[in-house]
């Protein structure tokens, strides 16, 4: 088994991708980093490692792609024991693919992009596409209850996992088999799904795969205001005709996206001017109010055509104007760009970060309005020269939607670390506002360390006790000492 005491290797695994982590990397100091990094190569290696850790009372923190935005792999400052960072990246094989049942058995350390490339060579896809999928790992997805952009067609990670295998300090944890569905008491897979590295190391996952769809098509709609856009989304969900991906950008984000467009020649400008004229003069839209829905459709040519027609009908019903494929594609790509933009901004006096929530349908507009209003006020109180608050509805469900907020401000004369502290304070205020207005603690980012403090107020004491009992059973010595969720 490979291992390393190298400083860089250890530092690299001491952080995730929160704003805080990035700021510390650029101008701060990590107070505690792992003492050793180990790269197991298969399930039995992990078994061996965890058994040793149990024997010598060593803390283990598993890490996959390291793209968490919750402080989930950050080392606890007061951990007295040795900390082993268990890097799963060498467990990256597809062990088998079952064409008949359309499942693949994959080692957990595989990175999303690799998994997708290799599956596509065989004509398959998982369809799981979180924004981070170029860097994040399968095991990480399972451990944090990840959600993908195209969940409407393929499902979230909990829908995709058929079976899994993990190692806990008190032994192996695995599903009873690759059955499509069982009624054998509570679903024990869910003990591991979303456990955030606190109960064991997920080593192998049997995941659903789908044949690659013959057609992928983008589309977009412009709505006169956010309200209309949300009503459109609601109707799509009600009719259950959601395409693979359906997102709604608010006005701020639309304008932001426009600002990011590559500059065009004189001809492009004329075309833009004409488009603008059409929307604002002929259609009577207010450029400072409009919002845009971006759509990705997948399936056979026929399927896509049917879907497109349905969406067009609903779109028109809520005053939507079809705005073409190009805008849809751009909206889709903007998602991947945004994480990079954040890191660049930090060097130019801008603090930016995103946070998400899930909300019942009747609260969507309220949560967006209240959170924006709250943050605007807080920014005004703090006299920031510029601030940017934007929201996007990124997922639709039968009973509600997922909302993604982007928040940025100029930090002026503050130091970067101070600015990040202020940001964190503001995110807490925003989260309280979200929850008071009817939103959840997290839709897919998870709890990690930064949202621990809310758990006692949203889980019953019964639920917390059950979590502790599970922990005591599988890990009495707290070997899996990542310290996420309700655990120390």
């Amino acid at each position, binding site marked *: 088994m490979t291992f390393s005491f190298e400083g860089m290797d250890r530092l690299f695994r001491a952080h995730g991708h929160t704003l805080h982590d990035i700021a510390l990397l650029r101008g701060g100091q990590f107070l505690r980093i792992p003492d050793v990094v180990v790269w197991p190569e298969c399930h039995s290696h992990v078994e061996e490692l965890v058994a040793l850790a149990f024997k010598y009372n060593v803390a283990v923190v598993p890490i996959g792609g390291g793209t968490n935005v919750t402080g989930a792999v950050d080392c606890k400052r007061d951990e007295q024991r040795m900390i082993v960072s268990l890097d799963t990246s060498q467990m990256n094989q597809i062990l088998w693919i079952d064409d008949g049942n359309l499942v693949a058995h994959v080692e957990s350390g595989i990175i999303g992009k690799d998994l997708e490339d290799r599956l596509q060579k065989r004509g398959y896809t998982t369809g799981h596409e979180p924004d981070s999928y170029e860097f994040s790992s399968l095991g990480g997805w399972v451990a944090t209850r990840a959600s993908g952009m195209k969940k409407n067609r393929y499902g979230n990670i909990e829908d995709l996992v058929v079976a899994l295998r993990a190692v806990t300090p008190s032994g192996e944890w695995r599903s009873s088999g690759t059955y499509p569905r069982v009624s054998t008491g509570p679903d024990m897979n869910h003990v591991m799904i979303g456990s955030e590295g606190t109960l064991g190391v997920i080593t192998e996952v049997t995941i659903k795969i789908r044949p690659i769809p013959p057609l992928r098509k983008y589309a977009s709609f412009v709505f006169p205001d956010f309200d209309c856009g949300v009503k459109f989304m609601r109707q799509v969900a009600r009719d259950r005709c959601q395409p693979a991906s359906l997102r709604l950008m608010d006005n701020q984000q639309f304008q932001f996206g426009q600002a990011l467009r590559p500059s065009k020649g004189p001809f492009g400008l004329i075309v833009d001017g004409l488009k603008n004229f059409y929307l604002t003069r002929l259609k009577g839209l207010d450029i400072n109010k409009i919002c845009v829905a971006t759509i990705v459709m997948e399936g056979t040519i026929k399927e896509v055509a049917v879907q497109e027609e349905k969406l067009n009908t609903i779109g028109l019903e809520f005053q939507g104007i079809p705005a073409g494929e190009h805008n849809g594609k751009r909206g889709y790509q903007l998602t991947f760009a945004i994480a990079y933009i954040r890191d660049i901004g930090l060097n130019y006096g801008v603090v930016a970060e995103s946070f998400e929530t899930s909300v*019942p349908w009747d609260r969507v507009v309220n949560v967006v309005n209240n959170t924006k209003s709250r943050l605007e006020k807080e920014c005004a109180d703090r006299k920031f020269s510029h601030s940017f608050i934007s929201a996007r509805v990124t997922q639709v469900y039968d009973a509600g939607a997922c909302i993604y907020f982007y928040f940025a401000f100029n930090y002026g004369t503050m130091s970067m670390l101070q600015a990040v502290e202020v940001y964190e304070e503001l995110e807490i205020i925003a989260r309280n506002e979200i929850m*008071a207005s*009817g939103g959840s603690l997290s839709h897919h980012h998870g709890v990690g360390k930064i949202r621990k403090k809310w758990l006692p107020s949203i889980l019953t004491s019964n639920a917390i006790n059950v979590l502790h009992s599970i922990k005591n059973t599988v890990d009495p010595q707290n070997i899996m000492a990542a310290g996420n969720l309700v655990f120390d």
Partner: protein
Amino acid sequence: MDTATLEVTPAESSSRFTVKNYVDIVEKQKHQFDAFFCLKLWRPKPNLHPEATKMIIEKILNSPQMKDTIHQFLLEGHSNLSNCEDVVAQIKTILEDMGHTYKFSTVRVIGFFLAKLLRNLYQGVAINNDGVLKLSKAMSQGPVLLLPTHRSYADFLLISYLCYTMDIPLPVIAAGMDFKGMKFVNRMLQNAGAFYIRRSFGHDQLYWAVVSQYIQYHIVNFQAPIEFFLEGTRSRNGKSLPPKTGLLSMALEPYFRGDVPDVQICTVNISYERTLEEKLYAYETLGVPKPRESTSGFLSAVGKIRGQNYGQIYINISDPISVRDHISKRTEPNWNTPSFRFSLSEYERDSIHCLAWSLIRKQQKETITPVSAIVMSALTVNKQLDIEQLVQLIVLMNSLLAKYGTPCLIQNESVVQSVKDCLDVHKLIIHPVADGFFSCQTALREGEDVQTQAADRLVLQQYTNQLLGPLINVAVFSLIEASDPKEPNNIISESAFFAKYFKNEFVLISNLTQQELTSFQENVTNEMLKRILRALLQPYLESYFIILNLISMGFSTISELTLQYRNMVSTVLVEGASKFPEILAIDKIYRHVLNLVANGHLRGVKTNQTASYHQIDDISPIIVRIEPYLDERLKRFMTLHRKKTAVMQSHL
């Protein structure tokens, strides 16, 4: 806001309110045709859309909340309404009966008459310009509640007039159902944005739900501010009443439910040099029932007051406060309640209660004291004064008010003129006696009954209370200090006693802090001022003393207490045991009983629809505690009276 429309600027106005940005909104009207005024360009933002008004009923009926209420109502099985259509019809009737039917034309017509009336009755209406600007800014940000003080029926007309003049959206006004009785006028008011609600909802769940929905509709779909009176009714005695929280809770519910990011509240503090209803109030507090609102009554009242001089009106719009800054929403999600079945948590109720109290205190503190309040106070205590003495007192009192309340709106060089104006406005009560002296104390004429005399004094008290209200703590301080110069700590503990038992009577009363005490000791040094304030407080102590004695003698229902109180006070006055005929007013009895219940001395028991109150904690210590501050004659009278009753009871 378009500044060009705010033509009334201090420089232009020739009124004497050049202080602190105050402008006179009637001034301009004196040089302009009313027809121009009512046809003026008026485009406030946001604004009620008459078209949208027609949709309100339908929108409310289709809201998830209303649907749920109907469903629940049917499940509970109420007698005569057994199917959905009936309930919907019932709700429609309530809404049609209640709702405003905002029309632009009516607003202009009313504006025409109001402009005439205001010009006719008043010398001027002063208003703080920056308050108006802040208010209109608040309205561009989100829902706003307008909470005026309520001293007169003129209040809500004034506010609508003000909004119309200053290009602010006209408010939607919660008015009492009693206005509904006025034919024609009720329609007019409804067209101008008033909606009618019953004074008490009792257990009528459906009615409650409908009113609540109606108010919340206006908050969530914000087009116009909602105006209602925190005090619930017109204060008949010139000082603020304890707040009612019903409407406030309804209006704030959308904020707690998360339907709106924030609600801003703006108190509007109105004071009058002379109130239209001064005489009526006096008799109402004596127990004469208030005349029913009717159109003919309204018209004859208008006829009666026309041509009289009612002096100045002062409007002080306070800075809007944001509810979000004062009360945070609960952060833990309410997992099993859908948003349409939201109810306020106990914490939220308590916070609203506190907010209501602080708003009332703010109102009392920020109301501009009219000159007449000081003039009357001075004349109540002194037999006669000349103009020079009055001016001197006003200047002194004003500097005190500047520290602990809101002073009169006068400049030093114009004090003499304002005193003259005040004497002119109140010439029915204040009359000249020889040598340029003025007095408001009539010699007791032969054959005049106590009631008439008390009524006269109660009119005076309406004005003197406007001084006592904001300066109550100073008054209590002077009272304690004068009774027996004591240790600072004693003064503080004694002030706590008054704060506890007079909480409902004076909203600003509070336990003195060491800091306040020092401040009073430094700033309140003029013996004359102290004497005036003490004297104003005296009738309240006497009333309380008598009420306490009656309770300890075993009278337990409000009606019994009222009857006995009236008898006893009549005897007291006839025998000359008190110098204050105004103690004949019976409005304090209920307030004191409620206060004693809240302080754990009494417990209310309801039997056959009459509530009786029984002592659970001896109240004689309170009597003992208050005695040192009372006049010897009254104490002697009471001792004798109690002895007599004891003898009588032993004979029975």
